[in-house]
């Protein structure tokens, strides 16, 4: 038998056995049904997700607040320092003028 005959034989249309349909139906009805998740599981999952989101939001707010606080301290240090330097200089000049007159 050459290759062409082998292929023809292998791909030849064959009718299923007469009990094929019954066997498939029997298997399908015997398969365990997929159970739906219990409603309370969904509620717990939703609650847990909400709590996680809320904790994340609070933590992020705290981080933003601490960062803003340190920025305010830095800004006051720089701005106040420069202002004070100018004030000190004016004060010194004022004192020098007073001592001259």
């Amino acid at each position, binding site marked *: 038998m050459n290759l062409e005959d082998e292929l023809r034989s292998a791909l030849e249309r064959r009718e299923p056995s007469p009990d094929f349909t019954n066997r498939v139906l029997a298997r399908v009805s015997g398969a365990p049904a997929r159970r739906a998740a219990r409603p309370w599981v969904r509620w717990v999952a939703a609650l847990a997700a909400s709590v996680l989101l809320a904790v994340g939001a609070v933590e992020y707010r705290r981080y933003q607040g601490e960062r*803003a*606080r340190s920025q*305010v301290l830095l800004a006051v240090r720089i701005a*106040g320092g*420069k202002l*004070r*330097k100018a004030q000190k*200089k004016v*004060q010194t000049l004022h004192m020098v003028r007073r001592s001259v007159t």
Partner: protein
Amino acid sequence: MRTAAFLGMFVLLAGLAPAQQVKWNYDKLAARASESVDVALDGALLRLAAKFLSDDDKDEAKIKKLVAGLKGVYVKTFEFKKAGEYSQADVDTFRAPLRPPDWQRIVGVHSTEDGEDVEVYIKNEGKDISGLAIIATAPRELTLVNIVGAIDLDALSELGGHFGIPEVEVEKKK
């Protein structure tokens, strides 16, 4: 009639508009600076920061009071590796928005010790100070400060003597 109403509304809204921060363009200097400090706090962030400032700490309590009425704090400091990285023309661009009648230069000092110039400008609305701007230039450093809102200059200056900056006795006006 509609145009007049629109213009009237515009003027009204302009009057109600919050005090604005000074528009400074830092891009040129930022490209040349070796290091920089950038603080930009709008009203919402200042209110948030105030919640995190301690009432028990003496300095923090004072800062909390100081920033309570502010609408914005903006500080930019540039440090350069060598002198001459910025020109007088660059500084002039920062002075440009601080013109009368809105702004008044109240102090301009030069220090021969470290070659630093400090210029202090205030913005007045009626009798109250509604803004502060400081331009401090040293050979290798340039600092720009803009505070939007009613600021207590004495309190700010006093707090500037803390945080490692030596306290200096300043004569108060009687």
